[in-house]
């Protein structure tokens, strides 16, 4: 058993953790920005699927993963336009719109995929790697972390920049105030509409990017309902992280661990039923909820549309 814990095994393990954590992290960061601005997006599951499908189709036809990721972002933004127009501009119920987006996203991507790709299921192959000179040569960790695709680094950078921006810039302050007390932002001369619009589009773009990461890098293919509840896990993680993106990143990593540990145990030689292994990530989410749900704090104005002058 001990020889199973070879360097190659650990490398694969770490790679799997990261591959599973990244889509969730991107989507959760997007959801965090939306929720901090007061918009709860239950449509994130559908938005991720649209992003994943758009990324898959574009990468397949262009052969370029970067263009594919961009397509994922565009797909996510377009899918979230429904939330923007119906909720932020027209003030309709966020929960209804969110569920509708999820259902529509699931439906459209499944139909399109089954119509176009079932006869010849397509796989994308591997995204080009970006080996970082020096660090990439470190044994075990080198190939696992420092020979990732360049997309990984860009995604990580986006999350870190947004973490800083949300906490320390005037944009972040406006965004958070739109979720805390929109009337204050309005009275201070800011625009609740504009702030929430930006947050919703950014959230959609990030969820789409997360979806594209899932289809392009994590699974290297698309299949109907590929996200399999990942969007809802992102909502849970967002609420538990209290708007702090760094915590979102850490919790996503824990989720990645939970997904990766099952197959790893099997490889080592534990015989665990496959069903249990599939349940593990969800069990961990449930345990996290039981332990921390009481301390989850959502912005006071979350879920309510803002009308000037209404009390």
């Amino acid at each position, binding site marked *: 058993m001990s020889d199973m814990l070879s360097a190659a095994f650990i490398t694969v393990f770490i790679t799997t953790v990261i591959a599973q954590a990244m889509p969730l992290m991107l989507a959760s960061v997007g959801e965090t920005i939306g929720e901090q601005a007061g918009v709860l997006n239950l449509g994130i599951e559908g938005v991720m699927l649209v992003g994943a499908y758009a990324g898959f189709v574009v990468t397949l036809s262009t052969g370029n993963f970067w263009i594919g990721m961009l397509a994922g972002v565009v797909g996510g933004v377009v899918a979230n336009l429904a939330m923007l127009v119906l909720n932020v501009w027209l003030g309709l119920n966020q929960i209804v719109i969110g569920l509708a987006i999820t259902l529509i996203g699931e439906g459209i991507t499944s139909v399109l995929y089954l119509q176009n790709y079932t006869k010849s299921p397509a796989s994308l192959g591997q995204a080009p790697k970006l080996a970082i000179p020096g660090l990439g040569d470190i044994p075990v960790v080198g190939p696992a972390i420092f020979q990732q695709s360049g997309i990984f680094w860009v995604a990580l950078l986006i999350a870190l920049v947004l973490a800083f921006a949300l906490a*320390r*810039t*005037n*944009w972040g*302050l*406006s965004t*958070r*105030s739109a979720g*805390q*007390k929109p*009337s*204050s*932002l*309005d*009275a*201070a*001369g*800011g*625009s609740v509409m504009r702030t929430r619009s930006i947050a919703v589009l950014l959230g959609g773009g990030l969820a789409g990017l997360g979806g594209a990461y899932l289809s392009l890098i994590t699974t290297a293919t698309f299949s109907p309902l590929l996200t399999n509840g990942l969007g809802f896990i992102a909502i849970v993680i967002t609420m538990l992280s209290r708007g702090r993106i760094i915590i979102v990143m850490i919790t996503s990593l824990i989720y990645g661990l939970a997904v990766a540990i099952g197959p790893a145990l099997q490889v080592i030689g534990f015989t665990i039923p496959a069903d249990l292994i599939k349940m593990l990530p969800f069990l961990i989410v449930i345990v996290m909820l039981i332990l921390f749900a009481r301390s989850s704090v959502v912005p006071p104005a979350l879920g309510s549309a803002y009308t*000037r*002058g209404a*009390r």
Partner: protein
Amino acid sequence: MTTTATSEVISLRDITKAFPGVIANDHVSLDIVSGQVHCLLGENGAGKSTLISILAGMQQPDSGTVAFDGKVVDITSPKVAVDYGIGVVHQHSTLVPAFTVLENLMLGESSMLQNTKRAEQRLGELADLLGVEIDPHALASDLGLGQQQQVEIAKAMWKGSRLLVLDEPTSMLTPQAIEHLGESIARVKAQGLAVVLITHKLREAYAMGDCVTILRGGRNVGHIGVEQLAAYSEAEAQDAILAAMFGDDLAAVGDEASDLAGAAEATREVRAIDFDDRPVRLELRDVSSRGLGRDIEADGVTLTVHEGEILGIAGIDGHGQGALSEVVAGQRPVASGTVFFDGEDITKSGVRSRQQLGVRYVTDDRLHEGTVGSMSVALNLVIKRIGQRPFWKSGRIQPKAVDTEADRLIQEYGIRTPSPETRAGTLSGGNIQKILLARELTNGAKLVVVNKPTYGLDLKTVHLVREILIDFAARGGSVLLLSTDLDELIELSHRIEVISRGSLVGGVVNDGVGTAEKVGHYMTGAIEGTD
């Protein structure tokens, strides 16, 4: 936006603004001169707040103009107002509780990166100007109300104002904090800014204002200019203002008009009742509450209310008043301690059994918790007796019995409603409050907990509500009165306890002049002691 040496005039001309069903402002014209404090007086609903919303860019007038020194400007949004140097301190706090002072002040800046250093410097300047000290890194929710208001004033002047508008700034302050506010306003005025002070208290208008404009029913019904106000004695000014404020109603309101308008410092007519001889109705022994942690909980509260006694609980809004009243009403679980009612331990009994014992609760959230807006007035009046005879028989509602009871209560409490079938939500705040009081005080009430009973009501209803409570106590009922309005507490209560962060920090027997200062002392002491 710096002020000029010569005084500038901001003139409002023929401002008209109508909402469905009411004309909030009806051809209002007035001039605001820099370096002067212009007081705007009037009852709730007189159109003061609408006028301010128009100045602040929150509302657009249907017709009329605003001009700076004759140059007409169009204030289309709050941002435009800020750019013109109009700073407004709204009646309801616009601070974000979860933000620090500095974050609150920087909110609305358009540059990408925050310039914390410059902001701290600006706060320093403004704090010097106002003569106050503000910790830039304290959370807004940790500040006392007086300090929060200082931050709001600093925020209103952040971009260098030409006009500072204060909407009912004193309504929730202690006497000491009001004094500080007066000093700050004097300093702002000395800087050459125009100040508009909205109040419904005459003595403040006289003490702080240079000139006074009175609004009634959306119209400008009286103006006392600078020279005139200076020439008047306090009594003369009062008479002039009262005549304008109440118009033809003055005779009807009579001697109480000046009381209502806060002309003098509130005092209680001393009624020598020794409550130690009376039986104890409600007793809390070291009671702490346990809620969801969203607001401040009651923490080790010990108090007694005797038969026929009104016990006032003073304190800044949100300091555990909600938790305390819900603990007594049975809506919030007790974490530790004991609640006695008529000597009986009721700590573990629920809302309904307490109601049947005679414990009643008039919530401060009269629109949501207190009434069901979409249901009829009649049903709202019996809603706490669901399933009980004679209104329900074997599960079926008895419309006749309900209507009879509703008619009786509508008569007795003077609820102005087109019919008992009218939806409660369509009535005015005052009438909704009367529904609540009628429902709670009927059918064997022995103790009533009232939380901010007159908040946001017009003067006549305020007066009526207070009379109802005094009557109830005179007939042997006990009242636990939680309020943020110090004048109200002094007018009604036999004793006043001060609550701060969920604990009672001191009590005063309300036996004459000076109570306000004593209570204010406990309130400020409690705040400063914990900061």
